[in-house]
């Protein structure tokens, strides 16, 4: 099943600032809610997002309970060389979701 949607420009000029958009499907359960029988629903949120560009970390975010379901994270980076952007989301259950996108720098 689809888990992530990534938007990275496939081509960029060297030195150009490019926008990276990432969307992941996740419930982001806060841990503050209770179910119909009053039992607390355990917290399950993505708590860490990391993006690397050819192996170098360029963006990192700690997430907390106030983030809505299906977090949409966008940021900017400078296109330095052709290669791969890798994205990694880690949630409270230790589940890791990864995605990657290629960018060609001219």
């Amino acid at each position, binding site marked *: 099943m689809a888990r992530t949607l990534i938007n990275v420009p496939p081509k960029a000029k060297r030195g150009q600032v490019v926008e990276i958009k990432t969307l992941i499907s996740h419930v982001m359960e806060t841990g503050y809610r209770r179910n119909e029988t009053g039992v607390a629903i355990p917290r399950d949120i993505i708590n860490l997002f990391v993006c690397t560009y050819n192996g170098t970390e360029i963006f990192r975010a700690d997430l907390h309970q106030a983030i809505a379901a*299906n977090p949409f994270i966008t940021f900017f980076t400078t296109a330095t060389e052709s290669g791969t952007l890798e994205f990694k989301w880690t949630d409270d259950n230790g589940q890791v979701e990864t995605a990657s996108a290629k960018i060609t720098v001219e």
Partner: protein
Amino acid sequence: MTHVRLAGFVAVLPLICALVPSLATEIAPENRRSAYADMSRETKAMQDDDTANPAMLSVLDGEVLWSRKTGAADRSCADCHGDATQSMKGVAARYPAFDAKSGKPVDLEERINLERAEHQKAPPLRFESDELLALSAYVARQSRGEPIAPPNDERLAPFIAAGRAIFDKRQGQLNLSCALCHDDNWGKRLAGNIVPQGHPTGYPLYRLEWQSLGSLQRRLRNCISGMRADVPDYGAPEYVNLELFLMQRARGMTMESPAVRP
């Protein structure tokens, strides 16, 4: 800012209380507008960009389900319908439609379940389940940009009339009808929100308030419980009749499925 909002809310209260038993006036075709027009720039941007629209996650799921063999018949949707981008183009814009077998109209979700039962020999998908939303979102996505074109089917007439009657009928503890808000007072504010005209142009849609995708029936349930009226169960004929009437009312408007709403 807070004061302005409060003032707006207080101003609305007498309006809601004083709604006289007005005769609902239908919206002239040239004045019809999708609730998209009233959204913030940020929410519009979410809907406009498929990589920012969280409903697209379900559309991608639906694409997988479309070709997955299931049920005792071990058949997929694609085995009969082929490429959905061709075969399902404009289909959602024509639903609900009359089902000759059961002698009543069915909406898109019910149609998917009927097809499952008949051709795939598979159990029905639960209303608002991830799978049913994914399939209906995928099918509805193929109608994006198409005009809403409900079938000119005479057999539907009594059901459309029943839907219109529900739309016009005052109900619930607040003694409101759909028409009081969506025909007579659209564009004004209810608390902080602009009252929309209530056109079903983008279903199933991702509602930020829900933090998930939801069907038109779910949205109708919201409104009905908001009027403090009895909320029929999912799949009740009242919903299909209402959906049918709403599609007639929105005839010719452009499909946005899957849309994003606040």
